[in-house]
């Protein structure tokens, strides 16, 4: 089956006064894909998403969502999308159930309030005021509201920002569920972990530009970041032969461990095993840590993500 692009962004530019927020952003998201925009604060992620949601007008370039122009398509566009915005709230004295009823009422096609309450674990909080909810509950409600019209495309702008790790994992589970439903999801984040866990493809954004794009795996393979192999052996190694193994760029000793940095992991491991046999040595433990997107970001920009 030919998958048609659900979101198309081409050469997008946007400036606020003197600040060039977007400097030619392009990417496309396929139907049913979870696509991540990853980058530090101020990289241009939210500007991109808000243009796609129709909240901001781009200065240049073009966007289309489900084949529609967010600025010109009116209700048809609004029916197709669902959004959990970054800087948003509900009135303090609005009850959870009322919010879902009210927003659901704006659409001809909608999901039942009961179903959403149950699915997002808000059944017990149905009568609670918005102001009485915890950060995690507010975020779950925001996600429920983004799905109230059963949209084709869902925008999640920093869905886990400011939440503690446990709540963040709850949100991940919800997004994984959505992925199973074949919803097209555009997600922004500055958490590497989130992008790696959830996204089919990731665009790394920095200073208003896409600096790398691909599956998390592709990005890792493509980048110069190297894999670290931590080896512990029965007898210590002294002659420096480990650093000459195939693919190894660097070898360091840390306590009892030998840390091998390799660009070609499978070959390095085969060579290592051969070497140990020759030396009549024995392998006690072996641990491989692949480069994270964080390493890739560092490699691409020379900066850490959270700087």
């Amino acid at each position, binding site marked *: 089956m030919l998958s048609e692009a659900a979101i198309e962004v081409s050469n997008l530019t946007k400036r606020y006064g003197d600040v060039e927020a977007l400097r030619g952003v392009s990417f496309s998201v396929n139907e049913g894909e979870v696509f991540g925009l990853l980058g530090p604060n101020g990289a241009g992620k939210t500007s991109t998403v808000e243009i796609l949601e129709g909240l901001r007008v781009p200065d240049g370039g073009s966007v289309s969502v489900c084949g529609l122009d967010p600025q010109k398509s009116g209700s048809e566009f609004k029916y197709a999308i669902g959004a959990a915005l970054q800087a948003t709230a509900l009135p303090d*004295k609005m009850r959870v159930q009322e919010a879902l009823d009210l927003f659901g009422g704006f*659409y001809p096609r909608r999901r039942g309030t009961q179903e959403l309450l149950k699915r997002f674990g808000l059944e017990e909080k149905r009568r609670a005021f918005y102001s009485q909810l915890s950060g995690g509950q507010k975020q779950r409600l925001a996600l429920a509201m983004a799905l109230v019209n059963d949209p084709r495309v869902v925008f999640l702008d920093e869905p886990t920002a400011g939440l503690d790790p446990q709540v963040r994992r709850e949100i991940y589970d919800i997004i994984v569920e959505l992925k199973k439903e074949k919803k097209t999801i555009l997600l922004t984040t500055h958490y590497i972990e989130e992008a790696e866990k959830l996204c089919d493809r990731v665009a790394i954004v920095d200073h208003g530009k896409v600096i790398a794009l691909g599956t998390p795996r592709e990005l890792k393979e493509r980048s110069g970041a190297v894999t670290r192999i931590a080896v512990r052996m029965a007898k210590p190694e002294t002659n420096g032969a480990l650093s000459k193994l195939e693919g190894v760029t660097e070898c360091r000793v840390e306590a009892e461990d030998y840390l091998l940095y390799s660009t070609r992991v499978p070959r390095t491991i085969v060579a290592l095993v051969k070497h140990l046999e020759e030396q009549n040595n024995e392998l006690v433990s072996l641990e491989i840590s692949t480069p994270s997107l964080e390493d890739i970001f560092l490699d691409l920009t020379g900066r850490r993500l959270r700087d």
Partner: protein
Amino acid sequence: MQALRHTWALTVSRMRLAMRNRAFLFFSLIMPLAFLFGYAELFRRFGPDAMPYLLAMVLALTVMGSFWGLSVQLVTFREQGILRRFRVTPVGSSAMLGSSLISNYILTLPTVAIEFYISRSLFHMASLGNVLSVFILVTLGTVTFASLGLIVASVTNTMQETQIINQIIWFVFLFISGATIPFPMLPKMVQQVAVYLPATYLVSGLQRAMIDHANLLDLGSYLASLGGCALIAFIISAQLFRWEPETKVPRRAKLWALAAVIPFLLLGAWENFNGDLRRHAVRNLQLIREPYSMERIEH
């Protein structure tokens, strides 16, 4: 059809929120009732005959309260980013603004009814006046003042700014319209300015409907200017409406906002030359004043 459905859904929701807001309940129900009891106590010696005059002032205060009402709620919505959440739904700005007016109006009516009931049962007011005229004046007045509030809500950028501007305009409405200090007792110069205010026509119109049983025809010019102002103010507020706190209002738009006063500039000018508002006001004031002191006012 869809826009109407959205407007109604928002109206119901915003009424619910207003009912849960103590400040709103205080200003829309408790304060006007406090004025009613205060006036009745102050002018007790004139007995039930003074009640139509007093009730007209309280009704005007109640209606003018729409100026604060749900327009201020809209500023909070914008500041907290609540409006932008609505913006990604199919809800349009007219539904948002329309719900402000309608919910305000629906919430004003019970207060008006309670004020009538108390005047009648507790203070033995003899007649209800011309009920149709009162009803239409209350309706047009609520929409007018709520629309003016919407304009202020649109041209100001923060809640603080809104409150400062609202206070200034509110005090002008309160003190020189006749709603607190009877119109004939104001200095001549202030009277000449007061006839340019929508509030003055509301107070005067309500007094004539309550005391003289003035019908819609008698009050034609008042109704036309209140209606005109309501319409112009609503159109302007729709033009100025902003979903996002960071979108600033252009200075030209602020000038535009002043167009809402055009009907009153015209009516005020006419009233200053050959109007009868003052004559009616003086005559009606007799209900709460001794005849001897009236002579001084008439000259």
